[in-house]
């Protein structure tokens, strides 16, 4: 019998998990229907932050304080909380691939539901340089040994300080032709804000960490040259059967 096909996002998650597992990262998950404390407050997003505006976040009817998570970052807090409760202190390393939601109109580059992968490394000796090194290795393995360069630009997220935008460039013959030599914006990242560690019960005086959050749909678009993000949730085999 001919084999069926797995969704390209599943293939990416499988691949990302294998790469990060070898770097000591465990696979973590959290609820899609999340409370505002984990989705916002614990991540240093105050009550009156614009990100909480009605048009961005899906709120749940008759369940005040509940939202469809807008990012995978609440799992940072959930994971650290649960470890501390079990009496397990850092170092921690986890990735969190999963679905997230934004309450916006959809077009070729925007979907109301999409996938992210979160990364978190916490320890006594974690640096921004480790973030660069970790992402460089991830992309190098993902693009099968192509030469990969990582570049940081200043940015702002309430839950990281310093915060950076991460650009990636694949160079050399092993790079996919359409991507070769071009800087591509890949994700937001940074050093975990001390308030986030504190909110999760981890002593920010003793521990530091890096965190990143990357759109998996976007990564799939780049990786395979997919032209419409809505194909991801189309359940259309004219799309799926190509993977």
């Amino acid at each position: 019998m001919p084999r069926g096909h797995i969704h390209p996002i599943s293939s990416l998650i499988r691949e990302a998990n294998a790469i990060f597992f070898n770097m000591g990262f465990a696979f973590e998950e959290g609820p899609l229907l999340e409370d505002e404390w984990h989705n916002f407050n614990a991540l240093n997003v105050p009550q009156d932050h614009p990100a909480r505006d009605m048009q961005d976040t899906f709120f749940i009817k008759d369940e005040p304080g509940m939202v469809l998570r807008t990012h995978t970052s609440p799992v940072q807090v959930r994971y650290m909380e649960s470890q501390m409760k079990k009496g397990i202190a850092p170092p921690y390393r986890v990735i969190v691939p999963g679905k997230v939601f934004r309450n916006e109109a959809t077009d070729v580059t925007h979907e109301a539901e999409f996938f992210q992968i979160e990364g978190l490394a916490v320890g006594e000796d974690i640096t921004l340089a480790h973030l660069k090194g970790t992402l460089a290795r991830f992309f190098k393995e993902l693009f099968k040994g192509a030469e990969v360069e990582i570049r940081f630009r200043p940015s702002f997220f309430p839950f990281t300080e310093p915060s950076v935008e991460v650009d990636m460039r694949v160079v050399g013959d092993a790079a996919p032709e359409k991507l070769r030599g071009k800087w591509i914006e890949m994700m937001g990242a940074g050093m975990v804000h001390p308030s986030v560690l504190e909110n999760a019960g981890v002593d920010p005086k003793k521990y530091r960490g890096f965190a990143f959050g990357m759109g998996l749909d976007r990564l799939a678009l780049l990786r395979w040259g997919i032209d419409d993000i809505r194909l991801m949730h189309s359940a259309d085999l004219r799309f799926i059967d190509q993977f």
Partner: protein
Amino acid sequence: MKISRAWLQTYFENPLSDMAALSEALTFHAFEIDGIEGDILDVKVTPNRGHDCLSHRGIAKELSAILKLPLKNDGPRKSIIIEPKVEAVSVSIDTPLCSRYIAGYIKGVKVGPSPEWLRKALESLGQRSINNIVDATNYVMFDLGQPLHAFDAGKLSAKDGKYAIAVRSARKAEKMLALDDKEYALTPAMLVISDANADATIGIAGVKGGRPSGVDGDTVDIVIESANFDGASTRKTAQALKLRTDASQRFEQVISPELAAYGMRAAADLIVQLAGGTIAGFADAYPTKGDQKTVSVSVEKINQVLGTGLTAAEIADVFVRLEFGYKEEGGVFKVIPLFERLDILIAEDLVEEVGRIIGYDKVPATELPPFPKKPEVNANFYAAEKIREDLVSKGYSEVFTSVFADAGERAVANKVDSVRPYLRATLVDGLNDALERNIHNKDLLGLKEVKLFEIGVVWRDGKEMMMVSTASEKEKAAEMHLEGAGSPTYDELPLSKTGRYQPFSKYPFIVRDIALWVPADTDADRLRSDLAMWAAPMCLHVRPFDRFEKSGRLSLAFRLIFQSPGRTLTDAEANAVMEKVNAAVKDRGWEVR
């Protein structure tokens, strides 16, 4: 924010670099650039820097620090006195949401058009020039970041020769006609500026001034407002009134009350320069002046966070470039940030300043040390992967359908498109829909049977749970709860080997079958490619679907799929191609069944 290079130049003695160089300097050390149009940079100021960088002076300061260019004429770095005190105007603040209100009283101005330099400066940012008074207040806002407003004093009520400005909450069911000629219904949650003698609202604090007290051609005396309003309150008001203005945008981001004095000084001086008149004086209500903050960070900490080996001298150079006051002792910097830099609160904020000014290219890429223990295998993901592989090996393909549904136990309250607001309680419905849609494309896909599966979350019985569901043409859709499964390690499973995705045609396809009698020793594969050649280019696929032998002859049947990437094909077109194919087949001496 739109930033003009010519405007920036007023802050520097030496000619600035070209737009590309300015854009690059900001991109790698401060902010993303959303676009460059001629002389205008569109700078995406991050929310933590709305305090100081929604202004030309703020961006000039950034460039000064990044490019090591000395600033000239930097108003807010000079000491300032708001004098003389005026008796003719009083200010009272009856709310904790206004930390400062300065009223400046200028008499005998001549309202008229603005000079060309001012008109040009505002128009370059896409702003409309109104008159010299209003333009002066707008110019100072885009220059220093302090919103200002001008009232026509002649339209305010005087009592014993004195004007009285009050900042208070709006009254119930209060209305105000604003400068945009629209009437706004106010609520007590909103802050207003009131002409206290008449108890009349003359402005929505931090958002918009009122029409009745607006400056016009007959205005002679004016009261200039340079104030500080609470960020969250201004944001809520602007949102509720659907009136987001350049002023509200700046207050929303929270600005320092210290800036109000510099804004007032600059505006008053500019107005007298442009419109004449004399500054009668100022009334400054500033109930509680904040303390100057000190933030400490050590050289060690900076290097520990960034993963760098910077020296104390290199770090000190960053603070000098940013004009932060500091004292260094034993490797610890005690830093006094500028008053407008409300974002500098903790050591990590200073680490970021050092990192971005020096440049993140100086941060090396270092691999993490080995993790002290083997990471755990996630039981749910392990189980999902196992069942995924099992189903794929049985010919099922994986889809993701939307979590939004027509029915369910829970619903979202505010869906933008308001369709399908429920959270699905089952995967089955979505999967059945997907099955239905894919069955139409079965011939195009070359499938004997469409078989789908989905692994996804549903909300049922008050819980969020992971399900796996299958659906195919032959069996009814079914789903089951996905149970986690422990394992010491992950299995090595195949990844997609696809290189590039090929976009598919969205136009309908046409199917034609052909069955042939051919000699028993005919190469069926060769025949298939001959058919494909004869039917090209309209025919996308030729797929064998039947084969049997009878009395030394071979019967072969093929299905031809016709489709165009850019239009809908007609039956007549497909028929014409089939006639061509039939003719070619007969030429070979084969018999069409």
